């Protein structure tokens, strides 16, 4: 369960939003809409500790986000940016990047887990040996999702991840996200993405309100 209470965020001395409160139950999937530059991305970034909080709090399964809990909370979350970052030369290295860090070294997944995860992403196993730079935008996004799943992360924060994709790749990414048993909050303008999920919050005039259901 994600709980955000009375959150105020600012950037460069400008208030982005204030008094933002909402809850997201486990397994719930919501989209976050609103004019561009209104602070949606900053809200997502604040929820993984990449943007400072002026007031209020963020809680994930009863754990309040703070400098002390940042590490634990981040281990729950897959953060997907519009421009997917691979962070390695080959797809295999990109997928296994988190396991090169000391903290995760012992969690390294076996080959079955990897092929099962690729399968859920509807990606062929041959993709592993390709250079990461040769993948399409949609494939990169699905590799980025697979990377989080391999780490056992069960919350997805996505920031306009289908904005740069063509219709076909977009539908694949949406399909994958719909089927996954994760909690999701996704910033999206794209109507196809918005309509694929049952809950919608809109950020307007510094406030957040639920517009669906």
């Amino acid at each position, binding site marked *: 369960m994600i709980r955000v209470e009375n959150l105020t965020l600012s950037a460069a001395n400008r208030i982005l939003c204030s008094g933002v409160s909402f809850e997201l139950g486990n397994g719930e999937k919501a989209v976050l809409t609103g004019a561009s530059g209104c602070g949606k991305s900053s809200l997502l970034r604040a929820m*993984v*500790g*990449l*943007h*400072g*909080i002026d007031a209020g709090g963020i809680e994930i399964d009863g754990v309040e*986000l*703070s*400098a*002390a809990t*940042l*590490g634990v909370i*981040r*281990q729950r*979350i897959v*953060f997907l*940016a519009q*421009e997917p*970052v691979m*962070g390695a030369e080959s797809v295999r290295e990109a997928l296994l*990047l*988190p396991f*090169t*860090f*000391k*903290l*995760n070294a012992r969690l390294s997944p076996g080959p079955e887990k990897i092929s099962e995860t690729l399968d859920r992403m509807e990606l062929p196993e041959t993709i592993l040996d390709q250079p990461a730079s040769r993948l399409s935008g949609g494939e990169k996004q699905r590799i980025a999702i697979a*990377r989080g799943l391999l*780490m056992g992360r069960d919350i997805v924060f996505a920031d306009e991840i289908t904005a740069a994709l063509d219709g076909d790749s977009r539908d694949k990414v949406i399909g994958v996200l719909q089927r996954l048993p994760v909690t999701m909050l996704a910033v999206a303008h794209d109507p196809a993405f918005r309509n694929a999920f049952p809950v919608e919050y809109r950020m307007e005039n510094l406030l957040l309100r639920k517009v669906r259901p």
Partner: protein
Amino acid sequence: MNHAVELSYSGIAAVYLLLLPVLLLSMRYRLGIVRDTLWAVARMSVQLLLVGLYLRYVFQWNSLWVNLLWVLVMTAVAAWTTLRQAKLPARIMFPAAFAALTGSFLAVLFYFIFLITGKNASDAALLIPIGGMLLGNSLRGNVVVLERFFRQMRDNRAEYELRLLYGANRNEALLPFMQIALRAGISPQIASMATLGIVSLPGMMTGQLLGGSTPMTAIQYQIAIMIGIFAIDMISTALLLEVLARYAERNEMEKGE
């Protein structure tokens, strides 16, 4: 064979005459650099004359403390210039850069003086030229490394954040950026070592030959100084990155508490 080749007054005057064709050519092609050239030549001449006067006294005193003071002035100027040329906020970063540069410089310089030449650190005639060569030659490398590191951190911020979000510790998160920067700084040094003596006769060797040393002495010193420059280059850039990286990190949540 132990006499320096000295220039006569008429020789020095002739050197300045060599500027005449340069000025004529730059006027012919309308390069618009006459004023800059004259200003630069004048500055160089005055600066070097002052250093010459100053060094005469430093060599006379031959005191460890005066030498140390000279070293500190050198590293302060080097730290400031490096930050400015790398287009970094010099005022904010100066203390850390100065400390890193002074630390690595003193370590390599004293190692060099004591263990390689077996002389004393109060020997100004040895310490100051060697110090100048070490520091002067590592300057360009330091600028390249810092400039590259901070540019990488700015342009590939998302990759840095990705690594943090996946549980990288500080060093792990910074590693690829440091690798790119350090490689950029050290590769030209490796290349220049490999071609030395064939493509160019290095300045120190030339200086020693003119000063009356035998070719073998000149070469021994040249080998020593090349490895010294290589070492200080790597040590000072690594240390600079370690102390300055925090200015590029800025991880909001971790900063606050």
